[in-house]
């Protein structure tokens, strides 16, 4: 826990006309960790994320990313972050290699598209169009585009929503691999099992406010210490484990 801070958000507020979507959020992210923003739909997760991604203006508060102040040097921040948007499309009629070329041009750098596609196991799809990919492949490609500029931090907005169990596990492996190279990852998710597997620390957001920040383990321990008990006795496996053991871990993609 003594790693240096790479993101610091202080008293962040975002108002849309009369509605206050984010009400004074503060948290820090340490270098090299996977940090999760958890919470119900409409809690302000995506808004918070998009403010950090430089895509949305904030109403007030201070955000520092990689040492750069968001108000003063958003363009420097863009160079050190990679962004995966919820449900974003890609330039029409281009294949994956051409899309990677396009993005490298936008960053003004040269990138070996094959190598990058190899990282997300999409080499054989190099000449395919984005819309021809399966759900899991689409998400893997989206993550590949976040790595083009070799960012220090990547932001993933609900990366596994809508994927089948195999594809989800496959994506978890990919996210852990990326973290292993030293990249800091901030993600949002609805799935608590996902947060437990991936995140070093999570922040619960509800109604535009942070209710708590801690490691998943600590959250669970605290709850148990408070005398909480599950209604049903916990078995050593759940239905998803059954699903995976019956259908195998292999990806179901053409």
């Amino acid at each position, binding site marked *: 826990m003594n790693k240096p801070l790479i993101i610091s958000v202080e008293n962040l507020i975002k108002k849309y006309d009369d509605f206050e979507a984010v009400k004074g959020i503060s948290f820090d992210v340490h270098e090299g960790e996977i940090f999760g923003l958890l919470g119900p739909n409409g809690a302000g997760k995506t808004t918070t994320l998009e403010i950090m*991604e*430089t*895509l949305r203006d904030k109403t007030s508060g201070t955000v520092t990313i990689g040492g750069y102040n968001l108000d003063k040097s958003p*363009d*420097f921040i*863009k*160079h050190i*972050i*990679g*962004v995966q*948007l919820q*449900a*974003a*499309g*890609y*330039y*029409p*009629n*281009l294949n994956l290699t*051409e*899309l990677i*070329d*396009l*993005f*490298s*041009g*936008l*960053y*003004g750098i040269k990138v070996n598209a094959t190598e990058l596609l190899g990282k997300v196991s999409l080499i054989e799809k190099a000449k395919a169009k984005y819309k021809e990919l399966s759900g899991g492949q689409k998400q893997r490609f989206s993550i590949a*585009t976040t790595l083009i*500029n070799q960012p220090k931090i990547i932001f993933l907005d609900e990366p596994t929503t809508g994927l089948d169990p195999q594809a989800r596990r496959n994506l978890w492996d990919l996210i852990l691999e990326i973290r292993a190279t030293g990249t800091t990852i901030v993600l949002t998710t609805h799935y608590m099992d996902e947060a437990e597997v991936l995140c070093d620390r999570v922040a619960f957001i509800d109604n535009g406010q942070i209710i708590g920040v801690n490691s998943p383990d600590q959250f669970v321990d605290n709850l148990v210490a408070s005398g909480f008990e599950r209604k049903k006795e916990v078995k050593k496996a759940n239905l998803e484990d059954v699903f995976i053991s019956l259908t195998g871990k292999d990806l179901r993609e053409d």
Partner: protein
Amino acid sequence: MKKYSNTKATLAIAKASFKSILRSPSAVVFSLLFPLIFIVVFGFIGSGGLTVDLGIGKNNDVNSPIYRALENIKMIHLVEKSEKDMNQDLEKGRLDAILNIQKNPAGMPAYFVNVQYTEASKEKGNVLKSILSNVILTMNSKANPGPPPVAELKESTIKGREYKTIDFILPGQLGFALLSTGVFGTAFVFISLRLTLVIKRFFATPVSKASIVLGEAIARIVFALFTAIFIIMVGHFAFGFTLIHGFTTVLNMLVLSTIGLIVFLGFGLAVSGIAKNESTVPPIANIFTLPQFLLSGTFFSISAFPAWLQPISRALPLTYLNDALRKIAFEGASLWDVNHQILILLLWGVGIYALAVKVFKWE
């Protein structure tokens, strides 16, 4: 950190956009195929010229000099049919007239030429009338040598360039191709990039807004210039489209095409801002394009329109682009000679870009 290059980003977008255009069927169909079809159709119509269908009865004196003279006139198409069929065709206007030449058994004049015209084809009937009187007058005066009693006709034709149908049609089609590339192409691409969050994703990279617009514009200009060159070449080599100063004329036409396209891109940007989604693009875009398609001298000369319509035609930018293209190609005008047309195009450009800046939406 290395210095960031806006040029590289702009070119990356231009390259991506250009590839995307080439792979999108609608761009190729509207900008290349449609104009080409019109040019081919009008190219063939143009080479046909005016013909008069003239019915010939069975008992005609085909050895008469009048008949033989008519046979040699290209414009007259002789049709041999039975009396009954001919009368029916004449009524419906399928024949423009029926001719019957009989030798005069009584001697002078040597022949009687009976012609039956039809109300169904008055104009061609009139054309035939003057051909016939001309033929007969020449023969009569040859038979009666000596000075003509009233007046003698002295005719001469100066050398000039033949103004073919293609010389009118091609610049109009070229102008229209530029209009559809500029308006439809641009409007569709920006609205779809906006709705599918492609632009939002771009904004997470260091690319500037100017690079995005400029990159798209460059791709469309390059595509439109290729289209223009292709249309001009097909017109020139297949249908004899007149290019007075050859290569220089083509170059001038391309410069003019670029100016026109830049103005029309502004229309496209404005439409993409006004339209809520992809399905509202065509109606809004057609408000801009359809009147220009019909009224800007794409198919018919503006002077053929009724007087009350002409001021409207003279207000539209495509009118001036078409006009300038024709002047450059056929009359050999220089770009400076058409500065009036260019000035009006640029005025439209200023107005439309002012509107585009106001209504354009990034998200």
